[in-house]
Structures are given as C-alpha cells and as structure tokens.
C-alpha cells in the first residue's frame, strides 16, 4: 500500500544543534502529524498540520519545535536548539481526512541527542 517515508532513519546530533526530520507523506493525504515515542513508552501526539497551518499541538511541542511543508516538498519537523530530552523516535503520519480515513505511519526517525 501507500507509504510514508521518513528521512533519515537515524540521526545523532550534539545538544544545542539544529535538526530537521523529513517526512514524505502519502500523495493524496492532506493531514500530517508528528508523534514522539521514547523507548519503551507511549506514543505521544506532538502536532498536526493542514493547509499550511498547525491545527493542534500538545504540551510536548516546545517553542524550539517547528513544522512546515513548503509546496511540493517534505513535511518537516525542526528542533532548534536540541536538548537531551529530545532523544526519541519521531513518527510522521498522514491521513486523507480526520473523520473516516486511516492513518499511514512512517517507520520513524531515531534521534539521539548527545
């Protein structure tokens, strides 16, 4: 079936540096999401995005986080500056709508901040 691609699959970065996580959603999907999963813990909602705007964000979506999707390119999650507690697996997901359609998740980007 259609896939969500996430690039890179792994990233190691020094604390304080900027990182950009890239997501290529399913082509006819209009809603995009980021979720954060710390090893062995719950998958937690960060943010969702539609029509060029953030629709909802959680308390985990700190001021250092930002999302965008310039036309025709990746849906990105940028963290600037990174902190040790940002180490986690970040999953991108997309859906056609928010009513009936299913979500398609990517395989995740494993971020390690050192």
């Amino acid at each position, binding site marked *: 079936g259609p896939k969500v691609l996430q690039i890179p699959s792994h990233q190691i970065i020094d604390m304080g540096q900027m990182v950009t996580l890239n997501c290529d959603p399913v082509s006819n999907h209009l809603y995009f999401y980021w979720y954060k999963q710390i090893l062995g813990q719950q998958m937690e909602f960060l943010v969702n995005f539609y029509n060029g705007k953030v629709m*909802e964000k959680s308390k985990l979506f700190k001021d250092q986080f930002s999302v965008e999707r310039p036309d025709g390119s990746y849906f990105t999650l940028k963290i600037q500056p990174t902190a040790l507690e940002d180490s986690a697996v970040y999953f991108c*997901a997309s859906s056609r709508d*928010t*009513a009936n359609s299913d979500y398609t998740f990517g395989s995740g980007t494993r971020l390690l901040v050192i």
Partner: protein
Amino acid sequence: TQTVSQSDAHVTVFEGDSVELRCNYSYGGSIYLSWYIQHHGHGLQFLLKYYSGNPVVQGVNGFEAEFSKSDSSFHLRKASVHWSDSAVYFCAVRITGNTGKLIFGLGTTLQVQP
C-alpha cells in the same frame, strides 16, 4: 481527560493459541477506536477500527476486535496466533470532530513462542 488503558504490558502465548489483548478507554462522547501493530524497529501499521455499527470488526491477518459501550472496551482477539504476530500492539482513540489527534495506550507486547 481522555485516557486509553491497556492493562497487560506483556502477553506470552504459544503458536496456535488464541489471544485477547485488552483495551479500555474513558471518554463520554463519540469516538473512533483503532488498533495498530508495531514490529520491532518499524512504524505503526493499522489493524482495524470501529466507529459505529456491528460491534465486532474484522481486521487484517485474522485479527478482530469487539466494542463494548457498557464496558468501555475494545479488546483485540485472534483465534490462532503465528510467530510473526509477535509485536507491540497499540490501542488508540480518536475523538470525532477534533483535529484527528490519536491518543494511544501504553501498548501490549505480544510474544508468540514456537
């Protein structure tokens, strides 16, 4: 506050056994319920969902789940498991009319022994 509770962190069964993974939720309004599977090192894959109608829903690979409003439950079942069913299973709630955010349970790790 909406919550999703998966009471069993780990379940171990033998190949060919039946299994039930439990999910309870707390929310008084209209919701979608779904189950996702996560194989080690991969993203989440959709299994099945319920919104209305027949409370027993069929999913991929022989999985089914039953919704119970009186018990606030949506337990996942499979009649005969295979070793490849070993994974982490997440129950998720989506509140209708919201921005599409999923609220996940903590997950149940299913281990199928040969």
